[in-house]
């Protein structure tokens, strides 16, 4: 049924992260954690999977001497997200 849907995106937390990042230029890890109501550990793992797939860029910086992780969607991520949404819509007969 879901054979055409991207398995990287077809997961609740990863899809939530991608949906947030598609709407903004970049977001801090804490912002994503707040908005997705996820735990830091689980979110880190899912972000790493998205990064490994080339869907997001993750940069680590320092802000006021505290580590800061900033995530940004890549061009490949945008393209995959659009294909995923297109497939979902076709399943639902909206296209």
């Amino acid at each position, binding site marked *: 049924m879901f054979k055409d849907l991207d398995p990287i995106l*077809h*997961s*609740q*937390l990863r*899809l*939530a992260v991608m*949906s*947030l990042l*598609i*709407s*903004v*230029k*970049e*977001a*801090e890890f*804490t*912002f994503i954690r707040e*908005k*997705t109501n996820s*735990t830091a*550990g*689980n979110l880190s*793992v*899912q972000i790493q999977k998205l990064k490994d797939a080339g869907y997001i860029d993750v940069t680590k910086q320092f*802000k*006021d001497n505290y580590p800061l992780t900033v995530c940004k969607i890549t061009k490949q991520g945008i393209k995959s997200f659009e294909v995923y*949404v297109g497939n*979902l*819509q076709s*399943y*639902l007969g909206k296209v």
Partner: protein
Amino acid sequence: MTQPEKQLTEKESLDLIAKMINKAKDACHDTGISAMMWGSLIAICALVRLSELQFDYRLPFDIYLLTFVAVIPQIYFSIKAKKKRKVKTYDDAFMDSLWMGFGITIFLMIFITNALFNAMEGYKDPAGHTAVITMYEFISPLFLLLYGMPTFVTGVSMKFKPMIFGGILCWVCCLIAIYTPVKVDLLLTAFSAVFAWLIPGIIMEKDYRNAKLELAVANV
């Protein structure tokens, strides 16, 4: 530590996407501090210049120099906002470039008009007025023209009606100021600054504080 992944249906996936996009939108509220500061400053400068002309006195310094001094608190507000910001939207990036471009344009405009005043020193128009005074009549419309552009674009981009009306008001006042004497031009400038920046800034600040309060209540 990972939690077991929930299998989503097509409908759930689309609902989740819509929900997260809305959450991202709700996270973006601008403070109105900069708009309030620039609105009140430009209004004060125009009104002080008007009083100088009306009551025939001169301050020991050009009141418009305050606009250069105000760049310092503006930089402070910008750095503070940037530090607080956990997310940067495309609108934020666009707005930053728009207002920076506006600042550079205004600076160049001041430089050009000053150069023009110096070049026209001593010339007289056919009516016998010195060219500098004649040119002075058209300075306010030029600046009002510029004030309108970023204000209108910001209003449209943020879907914020007070700034859309403020931008249009600047252009209307620009047209009127072409045909009115300098004193009226200065009144129109103060009026435009209040309605294009100060009042929208107060509304934005109020919305920002309400949103912050709602977020604090939601997190309790």
